[in-house]
């Protein structure tokens, strides 16, 4: 176990992880620059650009903190660099944790047991790295065709089709959250109370923000709603 962790926290592994994390950071910065340069042409003001960045930043804190417990338990088995790398490249802490268990079992040992050696660790790295490739490869190969399909839909019959795409996009987004929200809603009373609290708070905050034109409140509305829902959850459990 100790030897496996020595390997897992060794410099070469850190270097691989650092480069991968660096690429994710680089990509985010490139897209912020590209989007900022395009913003004027789609009728966005500088303030709106700032606002979009701010809302994105605010709403990453909750989900990132939510992965705290799993990330820390993963660190004790997988070491710091691989946990870091797998947490910021596609795949969630929960999936990675399950994948690590599957790989340890396939090797014939368990996470954290005496038999967890360097080979077991290597099996896990293979599994998690190859497992994450699926999304990356599909995205790399199919996004361009999806983009062409979208262009076809929006270019047909000018503006009418353009609004068709807007309806499809909004409805798709609603479908995504309708499905996930309902799944959580049906998980139990506590979850249902949490969801309804968040929804009520969001409702009230947005109505206030819209009425008094408080842009900052709009920016923070989801963050505040999450905090309110967590507070309620705190007292229920």
């Amino acid at each position, binding site marked *: 176990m100790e030897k496996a962790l020595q*390997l897992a926290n060794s410099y070469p592994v850190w270097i691989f992880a650092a480069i991968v994390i660096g690429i994710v950071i680089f*990509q985010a910065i490139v897209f912020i620059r*590209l989007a900022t340069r*395009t913003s004027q042409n789609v009728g966005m003001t500088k303030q709106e650009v700032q606002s979009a960045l701010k809302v994105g930043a605010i709403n990453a804190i909750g989900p990132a903190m939510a992965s705290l417990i799993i990330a820390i338990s993963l660190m004790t088995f997988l070491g710091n660099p691989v946990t870091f790398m797998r947490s910021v490249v596609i795949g969630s802490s929960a999936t990675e944790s399950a994948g690590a268990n599957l790989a340890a*079992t396939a090797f014939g040992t368990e996470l954290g047991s005496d038999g967890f050696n360097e080979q077991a660790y290597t099996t896990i790295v293979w599994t998690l790295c190859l497992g994450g490739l699926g999304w990356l490869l599909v995205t790399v190969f199919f996004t361009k065709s999806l983009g062409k399909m979208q262009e076809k839909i929006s270019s047909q019959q000018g503006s009418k089709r353009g609004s068709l795409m807007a309806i499809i996009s909004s409805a798709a987004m609603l479908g995504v959250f309708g499905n996930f929200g309902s799944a959580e809603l049906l998980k139990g009373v506590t979850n249902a109370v*949490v969801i309804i609290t968040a*929804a009520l708070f969001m409702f009230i905050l947005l109505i206030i923000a819209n009425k008094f034109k408080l842009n900052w409140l709009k920016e923070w509305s989801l963050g505040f709603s999450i905090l309110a829902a967590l507070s309620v959850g705190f007292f229920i459990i």
Partner: protein
Amino acid sequence: MEMSNKALVAEEIAANPKVESLEMEQFHQKSHFWGRLTMWAVIILSVLLPLYLSFVVGYHPGWGPIVAAFIAYAAMVGYAWVIEPISYYPTLGVSGTYLAFLTGNISNMCLPAAAAAQNTIGAEPGTKKGEITAALAIAAASLVNIVVIAIIIASGSYLISIIPSSVQATFQFVVPAIFGGILAQFAIKNPLYGLIAVITGIVINLTPIIPFFRGIICIAITITICLYLEKVKARKKSVA
């Protein structure tokens, strides 16, 4: 000769900052280029790291356990490799897809961040302004996510020791709270559509469908109903 040409372009850019701005088409072209480049780089590194551990350091566990573990992992999430990029595409757009599928946490971080930002600015998903807004929000979210994870990794178990366990227990509610908040945001804009999405979601989650396909079925049904309602609305308008 070449130098003077370069200087001329530089002067032009300095004199007219608009030269630097991009049209949407150029934005998509550049998104494909940089999106693919960064993804290929991560793909290659994702193969190099285990290869390094196996054959350079010499801890190859044999192909048996690797293949067995990979098949088990693929059985767990393999459907998502194909279904997710396609079903999230209409909401993410070109740039959002490259961003979200590199950084991950799509349903709990990228999509909510994009939706909240679009709502703040008043940009509709699926429009040009909507896509640029989503790209900015997701990229910023990705960066903050990295910073928070870095703090978690650096602090190690210290962070867990200073946060009371009763507070830690509430972390499980972050994701349901996000879904509740975002659903409410949509419901304010269009109560009927919000209701349709929730009802469809509940019905789908109560019917014995394989969980893999619930998401895409829910998206398909919601799109169909909304398109139908828009058609009815348009017809009413034209009659009136």
